[in-house]
C-alpha cells in the first residue's frame, strides 16, 4: 500500500503512466482512428498513386502527410503503436519469465547444477543480439532454398517465391512448418533468446542469499515441495529488480527493434520502417529539415515518447522498490 502511494506521489511516474495509457488507447482504438484498407490490409496504407515518389504534405486522406510511394504516415503511426506495444510486452514478459525461472531454479538447487547453468548464462551473455538475428535469418533462407525457393518476394498480392528454374512458387508449395516459421519475427526470437541473462543473474544472486533464510527452512520442514518454495516463497521475495528491468525493457526492446528495421536487418517495426522509408527525404531543398517534417518527426516522437514512458515507469518502480539507490 505504501509502495503504491509513494509511486503515485511523483509527477514523473504520473507522466509515465499517462503516456503508456495514451499508447494503449491508440493501440486499442487503431481501427477507429485509421480504418485499414479492406483491399490491402496491414500497417501500411497507400493513399494516391504508388508510383508517385514525392512525399506529399498533410491532407484529409493522410493527416500526417505521405512517404515516397504515397504511404500514409498517420496510418502507419497508429497501427505501429499496436505492433510496438505487443512486441515490447511480449519480449519483456517472455525474457523476464525465462530469466527468472532459470535463475531461481539453478540457485535453489545449487551445486554443480548452478555452476553449469551460470556458465551457460555467461556464454549467452557473450552473444550479441545482432548475431542471433543474422543466424536465424540465414537458417530461414537456407531452409527455403533447400525447399526449392530461390528468391522470396513480398508484394501487394502476398508473398511468393521464384525457384531456381525461374518458375513462381506460392506458399502452398512449401512444407507447412516453413510457412509457419516465416510468420515468426526473427528479431523477436533473437531478442527473447539473447536478453534473459540479466534476469537470470539477478534472480540467481538474490535467491542464493534468500534460500539460507530461516523461513525457507521452515517451509521445507513443513513439507513444502521444491516447486512451492520456488514459486510461493523465493520468486515473490526477489521479484522487485526483475520488475524494474522488465519495465525498462518494454521500451528498450521496441527501440532496438526499430533500429534493426531501420538498418535493414528485419524486425518489421512499422515505426522503424517509416523512418527508413523516408530517410532520403529528411533534408529538403536548401538543406532545411523543415520542408518535409512529416517524414521523420511523427515517427521520431512516437519512438522517443515510447522509450521515455517505459523508462519513467522503470525509474519510478526502482525508487519505490529499491529505495536505497535513489
Amino acid at each position, binding site marked *: 500500500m505504501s509502495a503504491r502511494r509513494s509511486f503515485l506521489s511523483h509527477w514523473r511516474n504520473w507522466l509515465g503512466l499517462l503516456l503508456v495509457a495514451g499508447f494503449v488507447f491508440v493501440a486499442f482504438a487503431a481501427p477507429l482512428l485509421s480504418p485499414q484498407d479492406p483491399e490491402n490490409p496491414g500497417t501500411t496504407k497507400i493513399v494516391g498513386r504508388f508510383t508517385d515518389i514525392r512525399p506529399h504534405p498533410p491532407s484529409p486522406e493522410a493527416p500526417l502527410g505521405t512517404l515516397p510511394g504515397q504511404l500514409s504516415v498517420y496510418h502507419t503511426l497508429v497501427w505501429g503503436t499496436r505492433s510496438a506495444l505487443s512486441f515490447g510486452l511480449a519480449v519483456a514478459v517472455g525474457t523476464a519469465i525465462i530469466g527468472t525461472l532459470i535463475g531461481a531454479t539453478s540457485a535453489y538447487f545449487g551445486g554443480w547444477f548452478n555452476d553449469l547453468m551460470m556458465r551457460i548464462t555467461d556464454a549467452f551473455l557473450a552473444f*550479441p543480439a545482432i548475431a542471433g538475428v*543474422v543466424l536465424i535469418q540465414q537458417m530461414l533462407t537456407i531452409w527455403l532454398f533447400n525447399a526449392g525457393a530461390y528468391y522470396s518476394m513480398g508484394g501487394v498480392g502476398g508473398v511468393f517465391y521464384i525457384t531456381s528454374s525461374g518458375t513462381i512458387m506460392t506458399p502452398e508449395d512449401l512444407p507447412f512448418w516453413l510457412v509457419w516459421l516465416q510468420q515468426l519475427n526473427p528479431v523477436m526470437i533473437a531478442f527473447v533468446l539473447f536478453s534473459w541473462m540479466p534476469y537470470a*543473474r539477478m534472480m540467481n544472486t538474490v535467491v542464493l542469499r534468500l534460500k539460507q533464510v530461516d523461513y525457507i527452512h521452515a517451509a521445507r520442514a513443513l513439507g513444502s515441495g521444491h516447486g512451492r518454495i520456488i514459486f510461493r516463497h523465493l520468486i515473490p521475495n526477489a521479484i522487485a529488480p526483475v520488475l524494474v528491468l522488465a519495465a525498462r525493457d518494454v521500451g528498450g526492446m521496441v527501440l532496438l527493434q526499430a533500429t534493426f528495421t*531501420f538498418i535493414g536487418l*528485419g524486425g518489421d517495426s512499422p515505426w522503424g520502417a517509416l523512418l527508413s522509408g523516408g530517410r532520403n527525404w*529528411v533534408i529538403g531543398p536548401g538543406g532545411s529539415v523543415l520542408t518535409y517534417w512529416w517524414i521523420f518527426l511523427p515517427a521520431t516522437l512516437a519512438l*522517443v515518447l515510447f522509450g521515455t514512458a517505459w*523508462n519513467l515507469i522503470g525509474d519510478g518502480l526502482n525508487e519505490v522498490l529499491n529505495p536505497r*539507490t535513489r
Partner: protein
Amino acid sequence: MPPLLRYLIRRLVSIPLTLLIVTAVLYGVVMMTPAETRATLYMPRNTGPRMTEEQYQAMLERMIEKYHLNDPYPVQYYYWLGNLLQGNWGYSPTLQQDVLTGILQRTPATYELTLYSILVFIPLGLVSGVISASRQHGLSDRSFRLAAFVATSLPPFILAMILIATFYINLHWFGLGRTSTAFGQVVSSEGFKTYTGLLTLDGLLNKRPDISLDALRHLVMPVFTLAIAHWATLGRVTRATMIEELQKDYVIAARAHGIPGKKIIWRHTLRNAFTPALTSSLLSAAALLTGVYVVEIIFNINGISALAVGSMAFVPDAPAAMGFAIYSVLAVLVLMAVLDLIQALLDPRLREENLR
C-alpha cells in the same frame, strides 16, 4: 605467482571454454540443415561462378565424404572445429571472399570505432556519475539525470540521423565512411604502411598527420552516437553505487578525521564504486558490440558488420553467418576480459579471492 597474473590466467582460460560451448551450440543449429548446406562451410576459395552445376555437385559430394557430414553430431563437430582452428572458415558467396580473410581485413575499422567509444564513455561516465552523486539533488545532479534520461530514451539511429543531417549534409564538418575519397586512395596505395590498422595511429606513423586528422574527423559522429547511450547507463550506475557508498561508516569516519571531501570521494569512495559500475559495462559488452555494428552500417563504415548485411541479401551464406557469430562472440569475450582486467587492477579484492 602474483595474484594478478593468476587471476589473468584464470580469466583467459575461461575464454576458450565459453567458445567451446558457443560453437557446439552453433554447430547444433547447423545440424538442422541438410548435409549439402553443411558442406558449404568447407568450401575453399574461388569455387565461384565459373563452375558448372555438375562440378559443384561433385565437389559437394567430396566435401560430404571428406568431412564425414553424414556421421553423428560429435564426429562432425570435431572435424568442423578442427577446420575452424586451422583458419579455414569457408568461402562466402555474398562477400566473394574467404570468410576469415574478410573478417581480418575489416577488423581494424570495427576495433578502432570500439576502442575510441570505450575511451570516451568509460571516463566520462565514471566522472559524471561521481560528480552527480557527490552533489545529490544539486543543479549538476539534476542536469546529469535529465541528460542521461534523454540519452537512454533516444534510439541511437535517430541521433545518428540528426547528426548526419546537421554535420554532414548541412555543415560539411564530418564525413561518412572511414576516410575521405582522396585519403582513401592514399591509404590503400603501396606507399602507406599498415602498422596497427588504426588509421588514426597509422597516419602518424607514416608521417601523414593529415590522414590521422581526416580519420578522426570521420570518427567523431559514430563515436559520439555510440558513446552517448553507454555513457548514460554507466553514469547512472556509478551515481547509484556512489550514493550508497557515501553513506557507509568509513566515509563518516574519514570526515570526522577531517579528510577533505574531495579526497574522500576521489581517492576512497570511487575505488569501491568502480567494481559495480564496471560490472554493468561488462554485462553490456554484447550490447556495445551490437551498437558498434549498427553504427557501422548507418555511417557506412566497412567493418565486420558487412558480414551481417550480406546475410540479408536472402542468399544462403552459412559460412558468413557462422563466421560473423563466432567472431562476434570472440570479440565480446575479449572485451569482457579487458574490462575484467581493469577491474582487477583497480580492486585488489577481486584478484585475491574468487568472488564469482
